[in-house]
């Protein structure tokens, strides 16, 4: 199963070596559109409205992550960007690493790290209780 680079949907259908690969091609586009809103919304609320450099504290983060709406927002942002970004990384690995052995090893390492980060992020969103200090 090789990643491919297509410029049109019809071309993608023709070039794809498997249905799964075509699905990833479509996913990159669908998640891309959703990520525009999620990522730019995240930047706007966390980096423009909030002084991210001076006013970020434990309380700000904890309060935010204990709100159900923001839990969902952040979780969707986390999942879509992890899948989109990791699949993108796979395209580069396939493009630049000619040796199949090296490819497998790099992928095993990358996917393991990504998995750990995703579990850690999901845990922090769902598995804790926050009681406001103030």
């Amino acid at each position, binding site marked *: 199963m090789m990643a491919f680079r297509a410029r049109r949907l019809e071309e993608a259908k023709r070039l794809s070596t498997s249905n799964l690969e075509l699905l990833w091609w479509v996913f990159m586009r669908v998640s891309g559109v959703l990520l525009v809103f999620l990522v730019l919304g995240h930047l706007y609320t966390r980096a423009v409205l909030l002084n991210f450099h001076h*006013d970020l504290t434990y309380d700000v983060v904890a309060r935010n992550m204990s709100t159900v709406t923001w839990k969902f927002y952040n979780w969707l942002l986390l999942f879509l960007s992890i899948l989109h*970004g990791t699949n993108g990384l796979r395209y580069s690995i396939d493009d630049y690493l000619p040796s199949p052995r090296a490819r497998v090893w790099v992928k095993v390492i990358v996917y393991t790290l990504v998995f750990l980060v995703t579990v850690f992020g999901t845990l*922090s969103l769902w598995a804790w209780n926050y009681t406001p200090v103030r």
Partner: protein
Amino acid sequence: MYRGREGQWAFYLHRISGIAIILFLALHVTEISSSMFGPKWFNALLKFEENPIFGLGLVGVAALVLYHALNGLRIILMDFTSWGVKLQRQLWYAVWVVYVILGFPMLFIMLKHVFVGGA
């Protein structure tokens, strides 16, 4: 594949920004999620990140994200519309016009947060 010089630049910038963002994302999720370990640890970590280097790093990541998002939309338009392919060069310039319009105020505000804000 990609025709013309603009397309080649667009492709490399898109690839480099995408890889940089996923690397940043891994660090960023780890950092924010470590708030699980409690206020003592987390506030100490944030204190360490008060160094302007980190603030400027975030400004840089935001700049990459904005490019990747706008050029990503251009790719999607080219993939799903016939006029998108015909106008790909014009769309590339449109990306930069929107980039400046959205990016300039963002840059200004973020730099202000890093260098002037704070209680």
